[in-house]
């Protein structure tokens, strides 16, 4: 039986962590994810979980400890944000290449500088090539649901990859909202016991973790990682189907909102997707055929499927909550345009950078993007394809 509650996004993920009761959690606190190790260490102190909590001295050490622990055969989690996440950088790649299904709760926050504690996706986007699976959440409910599903995805024998479960710093991590929680025993049953194929502490098995790989082998290891990510698409879908049976809440690679007859589509990720849906509803009332695609699974990227979903649109707008300084597109814009080109789709594409460092994203500001799309269509002129939303100068 589902339990109705009201929790912040951090509280929701902390509850999921408690329900999963992992073997090991090495963590170092950084806002806005500080509450995760904070709440979890009180679960440990209260005996509500039997997890080994390791208060490491840095995020670099946190990921190092995660790698060692997961390789030993222990289900391992951690949590971080922003600069702390950046400090894990080197080891993110090591975790992925060693095929260790660590689950990391990333509470998205801008990277310094200037120093800023608020939400954008520059931390997560910077790690998009690290080989981790990345799931993004619109609200506290999705952060909770994605977190529980992450273990089944990463640990699946066809995948064996680490998973990053992302939510927007402060906006959802510290915003209290209604939520439905599963029973503890339902979650435990769903995630099951972690039985890795190979583990350093399993007697009789031997394998190398983190070895030097000469030119003769390195490339094949990376190619194999890409193949595993490809496999994860099906697993992510299958796990979602099973999770829906349990929770009643369905998940896909991306959500299509009012897309059936949409002429103008916004492709967006994270909490702003909810605000965008309100903008779509308001525009629909005025007769504008607006729609929205919310990306849940950013890595692997469902390029072909998104290209097909928008192929009948007149104009689309890709919304990036990060700047990648290539002067032509953000990460979502680049991935969507590549997919459209590959599929031969002829859709006009605008790309916006928005919401950096917690710049507020409103129904009004997102509605203006749809107005821009209409203008492009009316004048049959794209104008500047790479734009900035709600910024001075």
């Amino acid at each position, binding site marked *: 039986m589902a339990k109705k509650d*009201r929790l912040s996004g951090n509280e929701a993920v902390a509850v999921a962590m408690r329900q999963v009761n992992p073997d090991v959690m090495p963590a170092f606190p950084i806002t806005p994810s500080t509450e995760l190790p904070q709440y979890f260490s009180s679960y440990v102190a209260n005996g509500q979980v039997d997890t080994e909590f390791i208060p490491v001295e840095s995020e670099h050490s946190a990921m190092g400890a995660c790698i060692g622990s997961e390789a030993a055969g222990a289900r391992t989690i951690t949590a971080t944000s922003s600069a702390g996440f950046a400090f894990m950088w080197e080891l993110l790649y090591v975790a992925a290449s060693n095929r260790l299904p660590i689950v990391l709760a990333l509470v998205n926050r801008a990277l310094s500088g200037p120093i800023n504690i608020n939400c954008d996706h520059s931390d997560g986007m910077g790690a998009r090539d690290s080989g981790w699976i990345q799931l993004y959440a619109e609200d506290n409910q999705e952060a909770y649901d994605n977190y529980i599903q992450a273990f089944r995805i990463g640990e699946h024998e066809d995948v064996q990859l680490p998973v990053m479960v992302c939510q927007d710093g402060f*906006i959802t991590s*510290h*915003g*209290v*909202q*209604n939520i439905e929680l599963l029973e503890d025993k339902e979650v435990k049953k769903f995630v099951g016991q972690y039985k890795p194929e190979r583990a350093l502490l399993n007697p009789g098995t031997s394998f190398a973790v983190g070895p030097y790989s000469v030119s003769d082998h390195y490339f094949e290891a990376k190619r194999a990682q890409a193949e595993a990510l490809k496999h994860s698409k099906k697993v992510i879908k299958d796990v979602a189907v099973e999770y829906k049976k349990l929770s009643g809440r369905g998940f896909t690679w991306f959500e299509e909102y009012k897309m059936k007859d949409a002429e103008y589509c916004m492709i967006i990720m994270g*909490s702003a997707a909810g*605000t965008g849906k309100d903008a779509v509803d308001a525009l629909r009332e005025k007769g504008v055929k607006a729609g929205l695609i919310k990306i849940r699974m950013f890595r692997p990227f469902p390029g072909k499927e998104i290209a097909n979903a928008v192929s009948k649109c007149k104009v689309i707008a890709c919304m990036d909550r990060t700047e990648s300084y290539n002067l032509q597109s953000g990460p979502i814009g680049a991935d969507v345009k590549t997919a459209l080109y590959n599929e031969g789709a002829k859709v006009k594409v605008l790309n916006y950078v928005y919401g950096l460092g917690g710049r507020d*994203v409103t129904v009004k500001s997102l509605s203006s993007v749809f107005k821009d799309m209409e203008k492009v269509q009316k004048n049959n002129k794209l104008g500047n394809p790479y734009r900035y939303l709600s910024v001075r100068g």
Partner: protein
Amino acid sequence: MKQLTEIRWHGRGGQGAKTASLLLADVAFNTGMQVQGFPEYGPERMGAPITAYNRIGTGKIRVHSNIYQPDYVVVVDETLLDTVDVASGLSKKGAIVINSPKSGEELRPKLHGYTGKVYTIDARKISMETLGRYFPNSPMLAAIVKVSGIMEQDEFMDEMKASYKHKFAHKPQVISGNMKALEMAFQEVK
């Protein structure tokens, strides 16, 4: 009740405006409503102006922005009226509730031409009388519940009693004072 009621809190760091917004979300949730309660985070420091928000309604709340056109505004610290345009975007059909011993009409000149209803409540007096210390939180919470009519007084009092019992399980002696503060606030907001 309106499908969605939006409330903006203005306070100073350390006065509990954020906690009050989370408490309001709690009681509204307990009476079966859809809720959001969230503060605006910045470089927090004691005494600096802070803002917190509530959305309370009957349907799922998807929007995740701050609130620019609130139905109601609560001002926990009267001195903010000199530096912050607290009534900015406030609906004329709504109201503002200010923690002050003065009357609404005395304060109206500081509200940048706001023409809607202005309520005041002396939360300091109530808090000192009932708790012996200055916690403006509880009186302001009761005042906004009364002014906005988002729930019945009895329902609110029952929920708050349960919430205090839980929150103050280790010091039950403060529960009656807090309940008294809520009751007085309901009577005295004008």
